């Protein structure tokens, strides 16, 4: 088996929302977009991150003495503070935090190590037409590892899906597509300025890649996270529909409602989640937006 190594931050079994059937999703670390609603903010950086969940802390104080740089401290109000500017994410504190309040996100793994977990559920994939999905972060930032992983999965007769936001050079796709059974393409919004504003990046390359994929050989599902105030307008959806019309490989379009599950993760990384007031869009609203795709050649789910 290939000795490529990649940095992953989670492997989830029995995933039923990342492609068809019962799947195992491997989450790769590192992303070049900064969507504020991201429910996996620990995927932003390629290296390891220290996560801290205060509600699990039993105030044993061990991290205060263990940290070689003295990054853990208590404020006068009794609040546990981490000096993230100095923290080198050495992991000494997390290793000895038995309460699970401190943990490290991100681990370098080989293809064989990942496949040991993925392969365990192979019979479930066969009966459900499921398989392996590589997600992230942006998995194509580790295109060589992803290609090796998907190649190995294919060799074991496991269906492979790639969940990407598409903001990578086309060469990354070229490396991975030969081993990919299905692409899940996350599309945010069509307006370039708005896209830059909410993700920190242009959508020019993204749309270019999408267009190429849509005319290529691998089936494609387009997934749009519906974020209130960002892209939940008829105008945006109509523009998406127009763009997708010319792409024969699209097999499905999914409108995925925003959810706030990432909020606590943003805070565990030391950030402040400023969008707590944001509510999931109503089912009816999703249905209305799905109406913008009337006449499309592919099914639309909301």
């Amino acid at each position, binding site marked *: 088996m290939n000795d490529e190594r990649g940095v992953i931050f*989670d*492997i*989830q*079994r*029995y*995933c*039923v929302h990342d492609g*068809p*059937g*019962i799947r*195992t999703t491997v989450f790769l670390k590192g992303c070049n977009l900064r969507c504020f609603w991201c429910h996996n903010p620990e995927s932003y950086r390629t290296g390891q991150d220290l996560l801290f969940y205060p509600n699990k802390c*039993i105030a*044993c104080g*061990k991290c205060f003495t263990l940290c070689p740089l003295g990054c853990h401290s208590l404020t006068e109000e009794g609040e546990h503070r981490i000096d993230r500017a100095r923290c080198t994410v050495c992991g000494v504190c997390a290793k000895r935090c*038995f*309460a*699970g309040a401190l943990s490290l996100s991100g681990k370098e793994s080989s293809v064989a190590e990942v496949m*040991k*977990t993925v392969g*365990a*559920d192979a*019979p*479930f994939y*066969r*009966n*459900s037409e*499921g398989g392996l999905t590589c997600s992230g972060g942006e998995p194509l930032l580790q295109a060589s590892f992803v290609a090796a992983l998907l190649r190995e999965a294919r060799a074991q007769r496991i269906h492979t899906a790639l969940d990407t936001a598409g903001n990578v050079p086309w060469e990354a796709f070229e490396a991975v597509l030969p081993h990919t059974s299905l692409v899940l393409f996350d599309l945010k919004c069509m307006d370039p300025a708005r896209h830059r504003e909410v993700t920190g990046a242009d959508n020019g390359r993204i749309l270019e890649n999408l267009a190429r994929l849509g005319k290529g050989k691998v089936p494609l599902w387009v997934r749009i996270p519906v974020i209130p105030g960002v892209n939940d307008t008829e105008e945006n959806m109509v523009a998406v529909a127009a763009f997708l019309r010319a792409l024969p490989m699209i097999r499905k379009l999914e409108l995925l409602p925003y959810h706030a599950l990432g909020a606590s993760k943003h805070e565990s990384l030391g950030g402040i989640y400023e969008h707590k007031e944001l509510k999931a869009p109503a089912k009816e609203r999703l249905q209305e937006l799905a109406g913008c795709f009337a006449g499309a050649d592919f099914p639309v789910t909301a």
Partner: protein
Amino acid sequence: MMLTYREKVDVLRQQKERETQKKLKTFTRPGFFDTDDKGWVVPPEDWAFELEWNHPSGVFGPKAWADNFYRMLDVHPPYIDPYCSLAGAYMDKLEWHSWGGWRPEPEFNPPALGELRELHRTYDLVSGLGGSHHFHHDVKNIGFPLGFGGILEKIRHYQEIHRDDPEKLEFLQGEETVVRGIQLWIRHNAEAAQAAAAIQEDPDLKANLEEIAAMNFRLIDAPPATFREACQWLTWFLVQSSIFNGSGAGGNLEELLTDFYEADLAAGRITEDEATYHLACLFLKDTQYYEIGGVWPDGTDRTNAVSYMAIEAAHWLKIPTALCLRVHETIDRAFLRKSVKYLFEDKCGNPSYIGDRCMVEGFMKNGYTAEVARTRAKVGCNWCALPGTEYTLNDVVKINMGKVFEVALLELMETEEPSVDLMWQLFDKHLDIAIDTIKKTVDFQYDLQHFMRPEMALNFMCHGPIERGLDVSNGGVDNYNFCIDFVALGTVADSFASMERAVEDEEVMNWQDLFSALREDWEGREDMRLYMKSIPRYGFGNTRADEYAVEIVNRLNYHTKKCNTPKGFNCIPGLFSWANTIGMGRAVMATPNGRKAYTPVTHGANPEPGFRESGALTAMGVAVASVQPRWGNTAPIQLEIDPVLAKGEEGIDNIMAWLLTYCNDLGGSLVNINIIDKEKLLDAYEHPERYPDLIVRITGFSVYFSTLSQDFRKLVVERIIQN
């Protein structure tokens, strides 16, 4: 206005829910309802019955039990409901009255048994001694062709044959008394239906009551001739066995009812809706364990109209029905899909699913053919049995491996050089002693139980007891396969893995630290306890605890199967805690997996709740399949699933795929599933009275949540929330 069949079932369900609340007010003993929901109804206020003891210490032997049973059936109030197509219900059980227990004389308590009783205490064994029923009868081949009149003739015939053997004669006379008692009880119900019909003004209900009366006057003697009569006959037989000692083994419904349904259909006597209604009435009468699906003895798929109607009837009823669907390679996928759809829609934990491959291949290893193994129906909480030819003590014998582990651990604490390897050897030694103790105890059960509480309500429905004049527990049937269930697999496997990692691999503590923490129940050592809890559990996948779990099952299989009981009886291992996780946990000190003293041990073959944060469904499937003992008894997996997982057609497809994979590819045995909305459950925990219709699956059985004791509600809520 005439109600449709389905509307009548709605009325019956509402009555059942009211009756359940009434039961709660009548029986207030804590924990009384922490078991199967049953179809019994509250007796009239003036109801009184007392057992007549034939011995200073209680009721013993066939005659005394039969006489007492006859007396109860004679005075037991009839129960007729104009909305129900079937008569009868039970209001009392013999075992709810003071009946003694084990005979005190020395011949029934030899010193060898006394020594075994000591060991039962040492290892917290549920020994099975004095256990009753938990095997399967054969209504299809005995009851249905003969009827109660024919059974009576058969008993009298064998009384003649055994007339010179006083012991056998007494036994057979007792059986005659039982059958005559049942006939009397049927007559009383028929008369009550006749009286109710006379004053009923609604023409539809009146016609129903008249039919109930006519049908039951016939069934006093005659065998059933129609689908409805077969359901009624089954009701009489099953409910009387419930009154006698709580037996709940319903049977395979396709085996029992297909011929009747097809004959009625051919004669134009029945519609699908009507048959579904009769099945709903049958399920309402008592929560017996019924199997549906599976294969006929020749291996062909058994799914037919009866299978579909059974699922539909349970869907109409929405009560804790105990249907189990048998999954195999060629199962009718539409049937399986329908069952999954209703499982999620109704949220009654119904049906459960059993893997045909595991059960058949496993049982064959005991020396049976595939044709025979396929008839071994799933008719108990966790168990299967051959109809009418096998005595099993299923779900009655439990070995608390948590306690076995504790005994070994206390011994380890006294050694000079403790090690995980030595602990493993000590555990294995004590496991062997516990299993040996059970085997010896089983022989005493075989020798003595028939003097205590013979199976008077089931013997006449088995092949052999009447012919031989012997109780089923004592040579009446051909096959004796004693079940031994093991409890606390997860607790023990995790404890080994935690000890190994903490003391030997990472050396974060030494043995004496660990011993003192365990003795003091982690007092002042919360940090250490959390560390032990954080070590990857059995079920997580590819962990040491997973490996230990498999190795523990290898050892319990080895010790169980290496020899028969001293008398030569076969034993079959399984993993099943029933609802004993609280009780068995109370016997076990703190364990190295971070478990606090006297808290519950792990459930069935399940990993500890919360063993992984995501993807538990496949992870648990792979883990539990890997620890199946595979000798014909089950090691159930209990799943708590959020309703959202079966949203839409794809959600149902995925659950179906999970079941097919688990049963067919991984060779898993029994699957019990709770579909539960966590927020609703949490609210019901605070305010059970607001949710009288909320049903949860505890293990092999489901119940109304509001009927559970506080301890049990807590256990269920914690288990479900953590998964």
